[in-house]
């Protein structure tokens, strides 16, 4: 009984915290603050996963989401000087529109959730070894296995990494026009791999 009460109390606690932090993520004017609040939301989510019995997932959440993604976001904020460049204050009509859309969406979804019978059977038991089960699913090549998505996701990650390198590198591809300069915003540095841009050293090498 205590466990049940704690479970319920934790749920409401984590839920309210998550919602509050989420509001901060979307409403904060200073981006670093928003990033930290995002970290908070994700942490609360991890907690909620634990409440749902998905401990492994909670761990993954903290490792990947919080530890990887949010950190990446913070890096980007730094790189794009967004922390001190501008204050994110959307105009009133924009905010109104956004509120309207999201509230309507919420109402819609809530309506669907409240009126649908999901045939829940909460009494059923989870499998004994959760992590083994997940692992098995991921590598299951049968009809209900996830090996194909698993492989595709790995490909996706590879593509994402390569793509981001290509997009974000400082030197443009060889066929683009050059301007002099370095890595100030708006400038491009000449490609040192091309002969015309080599530092003159007399050619006697």
């Amino acid at each position: 009984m205590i466990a049940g009460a704690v479970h319920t109390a934790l749920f409401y606690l984590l839920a309210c915290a998550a919602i509050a932090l989420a509001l901060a993520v979307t409403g904060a004017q200073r981006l670093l603050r928003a990033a930290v609040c995002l970290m908070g939301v994700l942490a609360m989510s991890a907690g909620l996963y634990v409440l749902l019995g998905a401990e492994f997932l909670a761990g993954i959440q903290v490792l990947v989401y919080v530890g990887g993604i949010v950190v990446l976001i913070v890096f980007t904020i730094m790189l794009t000087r967004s922390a001190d460049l501008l204050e994110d204050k959307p105009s009133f009509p924009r905010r109104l529109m956004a509120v309207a859309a999201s509230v309507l969406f919420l109402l819609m979804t809530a309506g669907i959730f409240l009126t649908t019978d999901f045939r829940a059977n909460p009494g059923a038991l989870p499998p004994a070894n959760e992590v083994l089960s997940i692992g098995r699913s991921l590598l299951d090549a049968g009809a209900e296995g996830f090996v194909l998505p698993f492989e595709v996701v790995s490909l996706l990650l590879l593509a994402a990494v390569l793509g981001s390198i290509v997009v974000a590198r400082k030197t443009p591809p060889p066929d683009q026009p050059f301007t002099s300069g370095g890595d100030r915003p708006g400038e491009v540095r000449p490609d040192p791999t091309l002969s015309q841009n080599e530092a003159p050293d007399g050619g006697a090498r």
Partner: protein
Amino acid sequence: MNPLGFALRNAWLVPAIPFFSFILVGLFLRPWSKKAAGVAATLAIFASAFVACWVAWEYFRLYPPGGAHPPLVPWGIEWLRYRTGLSVSMGVLVDPISVLLMVVVTTVSALVHLYSIGYMRGDEGYGRFFTFLNLFTFSMLGLVAAPNILQMYVFWELVGVSSFLLIGFYYSKPSAVAASKKAFIVTRFADAGFFIGILILAYYGYMAFGQLGGAVAAKVAGRSATALQPFDFLYLADPAVLGKLAALGPALLGIPLLTLAMVLVFMGAAGKSAMFPLHIWLPDAMEGPTPVSALIHAATMVVAGVYLVARLLPAFVAGGSALLVVACVGAFTCLFAAVIGITQDDIKRVLAFSTLSQIGYMMLALGVVSAAHPLGYTAGMFHLFTHAFFKALLFLGAGAMIHAVHSNEIWDMGGLARKMPITHACFLVATLAIAGIWPFAGFFSKDEILAAALGGGHAGIFAVSLAVAGLTAFYMFRIYFVSFWGRPRSERAEHAREAPAVMWLPLAALALLSLVSGFVPMGEYVSLGDAPERGGVDFAIAIPASLVALAGIGLAWFFYGGPAGRAQRAAEALGAVYRVVKRKFYVDEVYLFVTKNVVFRCVARPIAWFDRHAVDGGVNLSARTTRGLGAALRRLQTGQVQAYCVWYVAGILFVLLVLWAARM
């Protein structure tokens, strides 16, 4: 139909030859060689004239003079078919008056063509002139030969177009352009009435066709190449049909329907024949070249109205007061035009008013026809016949004089008798003819008209006709004395020379015709009903008429043949009256006033406003709305991704809503 000779069977050649000539000359010969165009056009009309005379000869051999002359339709094709019992055909009607007119039209046209070869020499539009003349001849012949009222209407309009083209021949002259527009608009306005009249006749004729058509068809069986239709003259002139139409009840203001229809038809005739008050276009139409005036506005087109009335005379007779309207309008125009003609100085204007007056004679002759006294029909047609010749001669002669003196004013001429002897002789013949002096043609035809008026018991009309005979003699001899007698009044008149042969040959031919055509016993050829009109001279009428004419000549000699100045003093003595008459009783000014202040201001301007703002505005509004909508929609394309996201979300919500509602 077997005893029909070659010409009768191929009577369609009479209008067809000018038509093919028109195409040939207009499209092919004109760009190639002007001279060839002129010669070809003239030869074509001479050929057509030859065929017309042949048709006349064959027709009167088939139905000898003195007997009945039923109308024939030796050639026809079905043109428009509305339904089995209602169709319009194109064909050629051969009966005494159509044959008469075919001969007149082709002969005068041929002579005018010949004359124009000399008159229009050196003109820029030489080829164009002959093309239009051919077109006109074709249209007029089509009108004359029409067996049904719709074909006549089609060619009526075509004649109007040809007239428009020819009046406005010198298209760089604003006055000519204005005159051609005036002619076309006035006649078009009259034709509106004409068409309504046609519709009424056709409608009620069609209603009665089921009942009476069979009987009428049986009567005319064998005489028509196409089946009888409600539009045919053979049908509309039938007594049974007319009786039925006359019995139809009152239409507007208590006027019987047939009378109304015939008055409307007469409106068309009045427009084309320039009866008061639709006469305003004819004096202005003198802006066209003189051969055009001779052919169209003297001899042929303007008599189309007379021809129409003659063609539908049985219907007019059945229509009661319609005929009275014809007679009154004719008589009034006759007097009105003669009075104005006395004061004009432009020779062509005088001749134009003279034409108005003479057509008035023809109309009143037709107007005094009644069942008991049908002489007017013959008289009107006879006068049409003779008038064509001497009026054409007068115009062509005037053309020669104008050509020599380079001015239209009679006061610039003078002494031309010595300088232009042939023209002088021919002109004198024509003037004597129009004045009605024996033995020239006008004497006989005018005499018959007077006899018809008196015989029908119309004393007032008779008096008017007699008076006008005197006036005619007076003003015609006024021109004669001023132009040909005395001393040359201007530099050019001094140096006037006779016209070239190609111009005086037609004059001589017409002079001969003006002399002999009076001796044709018209009554035996053309008469209403089957019995001929006995010819001969009625001395009780001839003597007063001749005396009046001689008095007119004498008065003209007094004022214009003697020492100068008498006319001047007389004109001054009459003062204001003279001025009013000289300004043609200000009829043109009245028309202009009404047109500007009533038609333009009250009718045309609101309509133009409506057209510009409502109609155009409506179209512009639709364009503006579309553009506005487009601009508004454009603003959706903000380039802001988040705005697009909002729409995206809205779309999702909408779809969810639909699915949810469907599930509910």
